[in-house]
């Protein structure tokens, strides 16, 4: 119906332009919220969601209670919704859209779907039209129709849809987030308000997850904890680990650190009702082999635990290994990686034969301006003022000319580096930015400090 016709019929009609992008974002947000029921949520745009509730219904008192709880909460947020539970996604879709019955199990589903119109199978438009033209109006008729001729006319896909709905074929779902191979969920009778209470819940989840990992002989290298509050806000805390972890106590310790330092606390304003602990990157445990290869006195497990704990609380970006890289520019000759990964192979460091350091012990991320006076234009500085102190240069070695890589720093000038010792024995790494041929007035920087 055109808008004009609609307006003619209902003069006080309010028209709003469709906003598919925002609708999709909203659907995604609702899907995220549904994480409280299961980690496996698939989007069915524009307005549907599939939740795989295999093995979680008991937490909510059964399938019926789960469905009721879900609908009540969604409706409380101002959405109209229907929900149905069935052994296959296609059957659930059919029930939700066309049936009064909301729950079907493996035995009853065929009977529940049979009287529904063929549209409930989500057929493609042309095969739906064809099937209607053939006079097949309900699923029962479709089931009764000879399969081969029907497939030849309506297409294999139409029959595949039928098989999906009846549970004769498995319909793959594509969840919006990769489902965790192992997870544990906990639901609380009352919303938990304090961190201590939440941690007790986390402990229970850790124990359950560890037991599940144990059964499969696995450990997890990544854990994600989701806390679901009454306020429908999702809170997720991720952890990465140096090695596959399967010990509940270790997991709990890391989460305790993580949660106690979370910027605003966990902010359980109206309480936490549910939590879910997902394990990712699961891998078989390799504990025995390590003990044989590790050098004596080196407790790899203790090291791993320490690095996990530091990274969990402070964040991975704050616990680093430093390494040498193949680059000329001083800033790029050193790199860093997470401490959670084992040290990478790197360029061998060479200690200068005379024991004199050519590179400073500490480097400034941003070289600091210094006002320097050089005796000859291309020479080392005689005096320089840095951090408001004038320093007399007693000795200087250089220049070491380092051209910046044009890829990393396009347009950067060549640098002449000097190692400088002042009259008080302090040693600095200075450079003059730009050759005299490149620049009129040289600018000096302090880039690092020697021991």
């Amino acid at each position, binding site marked *: 119906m055109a808008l004009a016709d609609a307006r003619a019929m209902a003069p006080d009609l309010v028209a709003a332009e469709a906003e598919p992008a925002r609708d999709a974002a909203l659907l995604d947000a609702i899907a995220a919220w549904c994480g409280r029921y299961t980690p496996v949520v698939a989007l069915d745009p524009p307005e549907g969601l599939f939740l795989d509730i295999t093995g979680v219904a008991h937490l909510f008192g059964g399938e019926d209670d789960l469905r009721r709880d879900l609908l009540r909460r969604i409706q409380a947020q101002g959405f109209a919704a229907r929900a149905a539970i069935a052994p296959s996604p296609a059957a659930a879709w059919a029930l939700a859209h066309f049936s009064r019955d909301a729950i079907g199990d493996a035995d009853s589903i065929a009977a529940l779907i049979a009287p529904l119109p063929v549209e409930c199978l989500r057929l493609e438009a042309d095969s739906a039209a064809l099937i209607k033209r053939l006079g097949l109006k309900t699923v029962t008729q479709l089931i009764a129709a000879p399969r081969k001729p029907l497939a030849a006319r309506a297409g294999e896909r139409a029959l595949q849809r039928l098989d999906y709905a009846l549970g004769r074929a498995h319909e793959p779902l594509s969840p919006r987030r990769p489902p965790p191979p192992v997870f544990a969920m906990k639901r609380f009778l009352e919303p938990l308000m304090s961190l201590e209470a939440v941690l007790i819940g986390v402990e229970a989840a850790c124990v359950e997850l560890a037991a599940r990992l144990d059964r499969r002989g696995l450990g997890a290298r990544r854990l994600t904890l989701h806390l679901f509050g009454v306020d429908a806000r999702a809170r997720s805390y991720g952890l990465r680990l140096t090695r596959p972890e399967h010990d509940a106590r270790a997991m709990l310790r890391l989460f305790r650190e993580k949660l106690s330092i979370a910027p605003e606390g966990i902010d359980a304003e109206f309480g936490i009702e549910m939590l879910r602990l997902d394990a990712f990157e699961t891998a078989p445990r390799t504990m025995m082999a390590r003990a044989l290869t590790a050098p004596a006195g080196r407790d790899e497990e203790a090291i791993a635990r320490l690095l996990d704990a530091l990274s969990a609380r402070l964040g991975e970006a704050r616990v680093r290994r430093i390494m040498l890289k193949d680059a000329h520019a001083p800033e790029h000759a050193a790199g860093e990686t997470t401490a959670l990964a084992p040290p990478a192979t790197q360029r061998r460091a060479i200690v200068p034969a005379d024991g004199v350091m050519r590179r400073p012990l500490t*480097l400034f991320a941003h070289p600091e301006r210094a006002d320097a006076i050089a005796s000859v234009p291309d020479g080392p500085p005689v005096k320089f003022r840095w951090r408001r102190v004038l320093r007399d240069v007693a000795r200087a070695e250089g220049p070491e000319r380092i051209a910046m890589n044009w890829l990393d720093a396009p347009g950067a000038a060549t640098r002449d580096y000097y190692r400088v010792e002042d009259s008080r024995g302090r*040693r600095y790494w200075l450079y003059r930015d730009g050759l005299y041929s490149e620049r009129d007035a040289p600018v000096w920087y302090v880039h690092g*400090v020697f021991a």
Partner: protein
Amino acid sequence: MEIIPPHARAAAALKGGAGLVRAADIAPLKTGAAESFSEIAEAVRAAPLHEIAPAEAGDVGAALGFALGLTQLWTAPLTLFISPQARNGEDGTLYAEGCAQFGFRLEDLILVRPRTAQDALWAAEQALTLPGATVVCVIAGKTLDLIASRRLLLAAETFGAHGLLVRLDGLSAGAAWTRWRIAAAASLAAADGEIGRPALRAQLTRRRGGRSDLSWTLEWDAHARRFSERAAMAGAVAAAAEDGPAKARAG
């Protein structure tokens, strides 16, 4: 116990007056044969917690060098260098290439950059619970009080770990076994105008159950990975010449 007063001139120099201080100006202390630096180093090796302070704000580089040098007293499974984020802007971050030239094994070094001093202390305490670990914690401010330093001491003692607290503010809290004041010192080199091996002036200002108020001029040997005491100043150049270019020793 006999207490030898610090050499007046050296003390004046280390107090950091406005005057020009050259390490060469500081005459050697009469420390006595029993108190060579290598013996003190043995005492440091046996104790769990030490405090290192730069003599002046400009000596942070020397103090860090001293701390990193001391870490090599122990063969630790892991060395953690903890420095609050804010300090990194001020003092720069450890530079991998410089550390390698200093003789450090980068594989065993972990850099920790906590947001606050509290986090730094927490990280240091955690790290000290790793058996045998060596922990360098750079810290300023009152966060590290007596209670905090006793906690660190307890952790280090219990787990056989070693902690070096680099205190940038001149404050000190009691629990450390030795306390050091570190100033930069002019390096010695074979040729004139060249820069030599890392050198610093280390003053032992406190030592539990032993004589303090001793000081040495030390040079870092990146091959042997230890500090060597610079010989009496007069003979220093000759000694340096004698040493020649350090032989590359194993390790």
